[in-house]
């Protein structure tokens, strides 16, 4: 078979899976008065379609911010506006101001699902394919296999096509940024990532590596010559992109402040629901939420986040290669997820994107992480009635990872890429033993995941501890994430700076 047909088979498999998952229910289906994220997205279409731009982020008689008020940056709002226009063409009742609240119908569900599919086809799929063809190593078959695995990552599919959100848009824009920087089209990369930031403020999790990578590139070219020129060009691109996105709001500083206030709702607390991050897990032991004041919490989380991303960022600054960049993206976004303020369980998709990109180099670890990340959202998925697609897509992903990427049968050196650290470890553990250890823990963790999933579905929690299973799931996932953060930091920081390995990974 030709390569183009292999690629199209991959793309079609990805699309088929997505559409098949979309048959299931969505968040808040038939649950008035608040419904869920599905209604939030529909409501944004209603608001942006009917109200002038200046009122989008303000509480007015026509715009009750208490009911799914717009709290994403302008680009999301424009996207909603576009969808709103299409919706109006098909059925005006879908976006009628006020009366459309809580509108649900089979046709509307179909429309909403189609908008997600369109966004995916237009920007996410091309980015993944481009990345795999141009920026990943190996034979063409290996590249296609990697693409297939990335496209079938269950977490993103379940949240976008089950729960309902447009995560693939912001992630795709980031991926375009990565592809741009990887191919040396720095301005395109900067443009794409600026758009991503303007689509979803959570993309800040990725911002420091982007900044360090670009700055590192400039420094490498010499800050007094071509590097400076590049820096100016990049800064201009970013500024112009931001200015264009924020254009309608720039007339009035009050407006900007209100939008910013909506984007960073500090008063919503350290964490929401059950998140597999440090604060939520720590809360099981110490009630930090009540113990510390809001400002202390804010400061503490900020300090810890900064502290945990500094080493990887500095390393990237001194060695701006694509491999380092990808590792830094993982480390930074994972650190944000674990330590920052006001994190959602769905934010795990942000570290999941760069981990997807490592599926070729570190198959076992990547597959492991991605499975855990999907598992960490289990309570949410169960609430939305997505048990079946969760089970099927996770099993399929595990099987694909093990079969196509042969995640389980690679030598430990290759498998873990620990470099010098690995040599030191060899004093204690032989090669064979290390590989065995990793595989055993992988299996144990899989079994535990399966067991916990099963019990969450089948067993009733004891009356005294109604949140027992969600807490168990999040603590279990948290421990994995913490270990992964350490591991990925280790990989990044111990990578030797010899030219040979640079060539290999670049």
């Amino acid at each position, binding site marked *: *078979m*030709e390569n183009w*047909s*292999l690629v*199209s*088979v991959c793309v*079609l*498999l990805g*699309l*088929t*899976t997505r*559409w*098949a*998952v979309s*048959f*299931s229910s969505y968040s808040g289906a038939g649950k008035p008065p608040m419904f869920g994220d599905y209604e939030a997205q529909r409501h944004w279409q209603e608001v942006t379609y009917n109200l002038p731009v200046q009122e989008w982020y303000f509480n007015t008689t026509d715009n009750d911010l208490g009911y799914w008020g717009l709290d994403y940056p302008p680009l999301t709002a424009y996207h909603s506006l576009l969808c709103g226009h299409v919706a109006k063409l098909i059925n005006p009742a879908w976006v009628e101001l006020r009366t459309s609240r809580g509108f649900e119908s*089979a*046709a509307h569900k*179909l429309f909403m699902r189609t908008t997600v*599919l369109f966004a995916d086809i237009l920007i996410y799929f091309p980015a993944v394919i481009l990345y795999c063809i141009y920026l990943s190593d190996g034979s063409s*078959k290996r590249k296609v296999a990697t693409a297939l695995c990335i496209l079938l990552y269950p977490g993103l599919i379940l949240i976008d096509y089950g729960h309902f959100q447009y995560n693939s848009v912001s992630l795709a824009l980031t991926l375009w940024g990565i592809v741009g920087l990887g191919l040396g089209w720095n301005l395109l990369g900067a443009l794409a990532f600026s758009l991503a930031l303007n689509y979803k403020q959570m993309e800040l999790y990725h911002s420091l590596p982007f900044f360090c990578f670009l700055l590192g590139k400039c420094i490498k070219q010499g800050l007094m010559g071509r590097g400076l020129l590049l820096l100016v060009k990049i800064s201009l691109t970013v500024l112009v992109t931001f200015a264009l996105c924020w254009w309608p709001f720039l007339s009035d500083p009050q407006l900007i402040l209100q939008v910013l206030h909506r984007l960073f709702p500090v008063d919503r607390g350290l964490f929401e629901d059950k998140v597999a991050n440090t604060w939520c897990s720590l809360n099981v032991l110490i009630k930090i939420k009540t113990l510390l004041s809001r400002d202390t919490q804010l400061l503490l989380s900020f300090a810890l986040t900064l502290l945990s991303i500094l080493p990887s960022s500095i390393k990237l600054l001194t060695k701006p290669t694509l491999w380092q960049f990808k590792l830094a993206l993982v480390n930074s976004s994972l650190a944000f997820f674990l330590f920052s303020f006001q994190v959602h369980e769905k934010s795990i998709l942000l570290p999941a994107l760069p981990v997807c990109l490592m599926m070729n180099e570190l198959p076992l670890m990547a597959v492991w992480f991605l499975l855990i990340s999907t598992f960490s959202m289990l309570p949410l998925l169960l609430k939305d009635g997505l048990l*079946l*697609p969760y089970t*099927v*897509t996770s*099993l*399929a992903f595990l*099987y694909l990872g093990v*079969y*196509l990427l042969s995640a389980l049968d690679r030598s430990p050196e290759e498998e873990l890429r620990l470099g010098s650290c690995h040599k030191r470890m060899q004093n204690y553990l032989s090669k064979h033993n290390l590989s065995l250890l990793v595989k055993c823990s992988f299996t144990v963790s899989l079994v535990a995941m399966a067991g916990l999933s099963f019990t969450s579905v089948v067993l009733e929690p004891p009356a005294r501890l109604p949140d027992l299973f969600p807490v168990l799931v999040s603590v279990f996932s948290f421990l994995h994430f913490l270990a992964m953060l350490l591991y990925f930091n280790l990989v990044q920081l111990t990578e030797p700076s010899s030219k040979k390995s640079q060539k290999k990974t670049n």
Partner: protein
Amino acid sequence: MAAPMIAEWSWFVALAFGVSFIKCLLLNAYHSTDFEVHRNWLAVTHSLPVSQWYYESTSEWTLDYPPFFAWFEYGLSHVAKYFDKEMLVVQNLNYASPATVLFQRLSVIFTDLVFIYAVKECCKCCREDKGKDLLGKSSFILATLLLWNFGLLIVDHIHFQYNGFLFGVLLLSVARHFQKRHLEGALLFAVLLNLKHIYLYVAPAYGIFLLRCFCFTQNNADGSLQWRSFSPLRLVALGLIVLSTFAVSFGPFIVKGQLQQVISRLFPFKRGLCHAYWAPNIWALYNIADKALSILGVKLKLLDMSKFSKASMTGGLVQEFQHSVLPSVSPLITLICTLLSILPAVFSIWRRPNGARGFLRCMVICALGSFLFGWHVHEKAILMAILPLSLLAVESKEDARTFLILSTTGHFSLFPLLFTAQELPIKILLMLLFTIFSFSSLTKLFSKSGPLLNSVEVAYLLGLVPLELICEFVYPLTSWQHTLPFIPLLLTSVYCALGVLYSFIRLYLSVLTAPSTTGKAKSQ
């Protein structure tokens, strides 16, 4: 030895798992009334004594498959009771609780294991060059063409039927013939006939082949029949197997004197010439020719408008339809046409069997002949030709060419089965997936000898794209959607009928012009 064997077949397991995952994801998709048909049969066989199975008529979907299938449903019902007992109550018409849906869907997915096993046996029969890369191996291509067959996926796992299981039995029987285990093959086919009698379509091929290649043990040097080599023992063994299978199946009903009733349920001739949606066959062309002639006649004032009955042809009801210009067609005529269409092929394998491959070709012709000329044919019956033809497609270039035309048009003609907006993307995606794979892999497989299809064929197949766009996207927006809603169906079946007919003719030519393969016949 075991380890390399596992590694060698790991790709097969991956293909089987992959498609099973897709099937599981389709659990919540739309299902047709066939879902209720099978639920009703579960209830009937579970809660009534055998003597009432073929008399029960609470639901309009009475049991109209042969006894073995009823027993199959009976077996399933004993698992079903652990899911939801309510589905086993005959009076619970249209019962579809989530547990019922889950059970019924899973039962299709699990019984497909028979199909998966059969495909593996078929792949073992593939002739192929060693040391090729996996994607270019003919066994890999064959496995994908069968396991990921678009028609089976949508008919079984969306529309809802048990064809995968049934085709599994058929393919297994074919594989047994390839492996020269003829008695086993005959037994499997006899069982299959008692599971679903539609496979009578291909029975002539089986009958002649077994008689010719199994009961006669030797050929003359030129491949023709050697009368003296007849083995009565083999004939008796064969007869015993077939008769005892039928005895086990129909015996209880014969003893109770219910044979008449069972037969009347199995062959309901009260239905019309064409199904509500015309299968793409000769009669679709015949109907359209009749319509065209009548319109032409009225225009030219040769015919009197008032004489026509106003019944529209595809009003959406299964009913008898009177032709206005051309003579009407009776069941007997369709039967004669069918027999005439398959006779030359059957005769040709009698003269020169060409081994199991010749038999398979004859079987495809029988299936296609009955599809093209049969009475009240369902569009789903095209699978009976497409699936066995896959086996030939990976072995010869000409068959690959026929396969691509037949499978593309045949599968496209299944589109109207799924008419819900929600399933529109999935059917297009799955169709593209199968079509792109089959075109690119078969082209690659025979890349040494130039392109597979000529430009006219390519143009015809590409014509399906605008046809689909018009039928499903443009037409519903026009005002004709309300006055003439059946036009898209009509266009689809007429357009596809041409491709099916063309494939039939091509297959026939390949049989009749086949070189006398004396040497090969021996080696097979």
